[in-house]
């Protein structure tokens, strides 16, 4: 895929969001290049998740525009944005706990079948999606859990399942909200490798706290502070920026995290 400077899959223009006098997101012009893994970092309360909620319209912006593939999507509702190929994950793992692991993936596959409003046909028509679902589960190493109840999975596996479900929709753009939050070391590496693997042929925008993961994965980093963009660039540029060191991480933390 040819990548030019202007080939932005997603951009925002003067995106702002205020909550009763408090400005959570302040004039953000974010440009995500096609094919990148783009990380959004910043201290707690910097507005990262709010930006995510604005991009997917789970919150309406106060002002500004959102463009996806140069199409203005500012006025669309969340489900319509998802149908365009922008699929998000959530900070807490977003699975359907009382459905089986297989059914979780099938719920996503089912959308393109266009039979989801059919309440008069048997669910057996969905069985033809099982092979595809198993294949997707295999790609995240969950095929042996296909018939388990989802609530019984470990936290790391739930996140892997979430990624498999998202992949089922073949999204052009994946938005991952803190995919490694609350995980142990082994799980973090597992999920980081998985993200790297699925980033082929698609664009990923992720909010991430773990700088080790960011340094390993991200092509570009945007640092948010108090709702506004502080700086942008690759990991070396961003971590060398004195403002970032001071405002976000504290000088020592950066060195520790980099060496870790």
């Amino acid at each position: 895929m040819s990548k030019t400077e202007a080939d932005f899959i997603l951009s925002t223009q003067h995106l702002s969001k205020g909550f009763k006098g408090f400005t959570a997101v302040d004039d953000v012009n974010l440009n995500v290049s096609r094919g990148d893994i783009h990380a959004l970092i910043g201290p707690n309360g910097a507005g990262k998740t709010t930006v995510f909620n604005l991009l997917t319209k789970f919150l309406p912006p106060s002002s500004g525009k959102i463009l996806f593939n140069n199409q203005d999507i500012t006025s669309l509702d969340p489900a319509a944005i998802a149908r365009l190929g922008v699929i998000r994950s959530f900070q807490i793992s977003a699975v359907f706990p009382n459905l089986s692991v297989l059914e979780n993936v099938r719920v996503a596959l089912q959308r393109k079948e266009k039979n989801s409003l059919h309440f008069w046909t048997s669910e057996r028509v969905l069985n033809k999606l099982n092979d595809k679902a198993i294949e997707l589960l295999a790609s995240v190493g969950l095929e042996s859990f296909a018939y388990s109840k989802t609530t019984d999975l470990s936290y790391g596996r739930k996140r892997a399942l979430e990624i498999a479900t998202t992949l089922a929709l073949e999204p052009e753009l994946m938005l991952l909200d803190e995919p490694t939050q609350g995980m142990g070391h082994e799980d973090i590496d597992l999920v980081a490798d998985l993200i790297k693997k699925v980033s082929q042929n698609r664009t990923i925008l992720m909010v991430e706290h773990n700088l080790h993961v960011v340094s390993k994965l991200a092509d570009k980093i945007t640092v948010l502070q108090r709702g506004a963009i502080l700086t942008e660039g690759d990991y070396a540029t961003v971590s060398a920026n004195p403002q970032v060191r001071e405002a976000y991480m504290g000088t020592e933390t950066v060195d520790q995290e980099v060496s870790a």
Partner: protein
Amino acid sequence: MRSRLAILVLLGLALAAPLVIYPVFLAKVLCFALFACAFNLLLGFAGLLSFGHAVFLGTGGYITGWLMINSGLTPEIAIIAGTVAGGLLGAVFGKLAVKREGIYFAMVTLALAQLVFFLYLQAPFTGGEDGLQGVPRGKAFGLIDLADNQTMYYFVLAIFLAGFWLIHRTVHSPFGQIMKAIRENESRATSLGYDVNQYKWIAFIISAALSALAGSTKTLVFELASLTDVHWHMSGEVILMTLVGGVGTIIGPLVGAGVVVSMQNYLSGGELGNYLHIIMGAVFVVCVLSFRSGIVGQFNKFRRNNF
């Protein structure tokens, strides 16, 4: 194979029951069971707690009753008309209610149902406080005279089975799969590209129409349509039946309706009649506090753990 056998046994029992038990009582149980199953479709499988479902039961009853008295239509047409009326009312109320979530959804449904209650209290065609009395049962398809209680029971059984089958099919359909996903995690369902309100709305309409079907049938059984069926007490009662039987299980509401209706019939005739509401309230409290999954839910758990 075993579940198929169980269904056959239950069906056999249902067919033989009126030989032993008073058929009008059995028909009443089936009407309430259908009502509770329809309600459970919404609460148990779509995760929506409606506090105004009596309005659909009552509307079905009034429409069918009025048509039977005034139009000379056959009972199955009058029942279909009542069901359609309930479905249409459900489409309007559902459209308004699904815009809200949780307790607000419950409040919207309650408010709308109360509105209609007072309308029915004043409107001439409902007979106000008196209700519609002496509704003729008529001849089904113009052939089968329903005046005989036993015949009436089998007619109700057929309607119940059709309604129950539709609920079962809805739960186990591609639509049902999405409905359950929405119950489990609504924002995730949205983020996968599903318009969740559309799914909730359709579930609401199906539930409302089947509640009206129950009401229409009940009117024929008792030859009476009254304000009791539209009162908010009735909306509470169906919640009680569903919870006692087991919310989110297919068969639970049927068991719950059986238990509640039996208790009402047994107690109101005896010396404990004055304490009926206290006893029902106590049952409700015990149920919510100690076995939240209801009789059937608890039984399923017991079976899983021991066999």
